[in-house]
């Protein structure tokens, strides 16, 4: 019978099926961070339960760790230090590899997983973090879980799950100048809604996706959770193999050849059936920006906030009030107070290059607070080798240490109540970046162009 990519990934990890509809799924890799992972470790320790495969687990400090230069265990979040110290202690108790505060390989967990070769095509990987789906870009079946599920995965190397439905999202066509993966996925959500996937496993396919690099595929996969996907994967291809090759935990020698041969079979059969299929004509997508408080409340930057009739719902009214916008208001030219480039969504080397290209020889508009936080310490180092940090600094951006930073507000840093922020992150929820902060999600290019103009601006407008 014809199978989809997801069918194959699931079948190769199914330990048993039970008669109530749950499968016991084998979990190859578990990543933990100081925010949610430590609670799981402490719960196991309290029950005196061992981790089945400590070598298949790592801990990283990414969520609460400070991103100011010269950082240590202290954080701007009250009590944050305790999360870091507790994580270190729990990791030592269980003998787990830890990417500590100033480890040269520290970074946002999903990026560390990719950089280390901890995530590989064909593996299952979980982390108590909703953006774990990012790693589907490598052909990994990767998904976010809760703390209780993390405890189960740590103790048993399995999870009990119902196999979700399978949705294929196809992007076809070449991208126009100034349009990036972030614009594609915001366009998709604007069209299909914040619950488009209804818990299904998503496969991204089509000529546009095939032409994207791994880092851009990560952006697509990252935002899948924002339209209620269980997971999102891209079939591994030569682009994937080239990316994975030589990573510290990737197979080498003869094992590499065997692995690639196995990975080449990880694609949906031509006649495989999906529960639904959605299509976006990528050639018609223009730079996008969110105007509301759900990532699906997005529109072309050259467009307007929807009209009053369309917004006459509880969510529509709430969004207008919170964002201080009016129906039919044009989005381009909306003045901003801050610009943020960071997060597991869009703070990889290719993102920083795109932003730096726009910022070179230009200055951030007066009064705009601009911050760049590379996604990992490795990305930061590589960017510095290319001199990108100089470009950011000279333009007026703060250049930070790696971490999740102001993608969310944990009680530490924020741009301040009422401030309008254009941000390369993943969530524009009320209060996500701090009480009263108004977040407009966009690509790093839109963030950079908007920082220069002091108002929402398409990258093509700058030249």
């Amino acid at each position: 019978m014809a199978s989809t990519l997801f069918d194959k990934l699931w079948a190769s990890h199914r330990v048993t099926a039970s008669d109530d509809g749950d499968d016991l799924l084998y979990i190859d890799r578990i990543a933990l961070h100081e925010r949610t992972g430590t609670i799981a470790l402490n719960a196991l320790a309290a029950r005196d339960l061992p981790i089945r495969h400590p070598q298949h687990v790592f801990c990283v400090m990414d969520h609460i760790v400070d991103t100011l230069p010269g950082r240590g265990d202290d954080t701007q979040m009250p009590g944050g230090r305790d999360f870091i110290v507790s994580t270190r202690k729990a990791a030592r108790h269980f003998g787990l590899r830890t990417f500590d505060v100033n480890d040269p390989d520290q970074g946002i967990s999903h990026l560390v997983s990719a950089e280390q070769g901890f995530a590989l095509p064909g593996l299952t990987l979980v982390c108590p973090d909703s953006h774990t789906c990012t790693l589907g870009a490598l052909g990994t079946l990767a998904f976010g879980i809760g703390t209780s599920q993390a405890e189960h995965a740590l103790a048993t190397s399995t999870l009990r799950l119902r196999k979700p439905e399978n949705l294929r999202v196809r992007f076809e066509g070449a991208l126009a100048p100034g349009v990036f993966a972030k614009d594609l996925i915001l366009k998709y959500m604007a069209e299909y809604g914040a619950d488009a996937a209804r818990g299904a496993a998503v496969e991204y396919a089509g000529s546009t996706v095939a032409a994207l690099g791994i880092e851009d595929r990560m952006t697509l996969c990252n935002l899948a959770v924002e339209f209620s996907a269980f997971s999102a994967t891209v079939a591994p291809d030569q682009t994937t193999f080239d990316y994975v090759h030589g990573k510290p935990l990737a197979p080498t020698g003869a094992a590499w050849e065997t692995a690639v041969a196995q990975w080449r079979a990880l694609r949906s059969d031509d006649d495989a059936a999906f529960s639904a299929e959605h299509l976006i004509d990528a050639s018609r997508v223009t730079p996008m920006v969110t105007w509301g408080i759900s990532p699906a409340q997005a529109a072309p930057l050259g467009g307007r906030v929807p009209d009053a009739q369309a917004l006459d719902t509880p969510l529509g009214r709430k969004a207008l009030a919170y964002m201080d916008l009016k129906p039919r208001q044009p989005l381009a030219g909306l003045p901003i107070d801050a610009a943020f480039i960071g997060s597991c969504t869009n703070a990889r080397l290719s993102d920083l290059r795109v932003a730096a290209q726009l910022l070179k020889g230009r200055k951030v508009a007066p009064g705009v607070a601009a911050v760049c936080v590379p996604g990992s310490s490795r990305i930061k180092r590589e960017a510095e080798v290319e001199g990108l940090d100089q470009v950011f600094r000279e333009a007026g951006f703060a250049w930070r240490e790696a971490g999740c930073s102001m993608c969310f507000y944990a009680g530490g840093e924020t741009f301040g109540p009422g401030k309008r922020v254009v941000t390369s992150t993943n969530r524009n929820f009320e209060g996500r970046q701090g009480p009263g902060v108004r977040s407009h999600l966009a690509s790093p290019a839109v963030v950079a162009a908007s920082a220069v103009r002091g108002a929402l601006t398409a990258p093509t407008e700058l030249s």
Partner: protein
Amino acid sequence: MNAFDTHRGIAVAFLTHNIDTDAIIPSREMKRVSKEGLGEGLFANWRYAAPDDRTPRADFALNQAPTNEASILLSGRNFGCGSSREHAVWALAEFGFRAIIAESFGAIFQKNCIANGILTAEVDTDGIAGLAQWCADDPAQHQLHIDLRARVISGPTGKNVRFNIAESDARKLLSGLDPITETLADVERIDRFEADHLRRSPWVDLSTDDAGT
């Protein structure tokens, strides 16, 4: 884990779609490395005057009698979307919620609810609107009764509303058994699978220094 079989209680409705876990508990309210002490942070952005001012907002239902004693929450589509934080569920449980009735749920949030003995009942748009209207008329008298085995919510006289829940989730709620203990009771099947799996794809195994060679 608490078992769930039947429950009667006061219901409160937040019928907006896409209520996310950042709204259920803002990140700044997750103050300690703990599953406890989170009930106070529940819906903090909507419930209190300001982030640094715990004065209850009189216009918020959880600050009004009798819905301040609600144990059932009614909502729209995609309830609990967003961050995986199980803190959202711990906060709901600590406040006293035992069941969430919605059109659909965020996938991770839904599993977190089951893991903590909170029922997630899926009901269609009209069913929820009907229940919400009836409860709002007189929250103290118009309580809902939920029967998990029958998959029925009894509200307005003579009008039972059917709900959906996956068979496996219903079984977990009814049994209240610890899933880790259950899984480890038959650990041999994991051992057998794993041996085959690692033989087939040896690079999965990082337990030896020569992994991948």
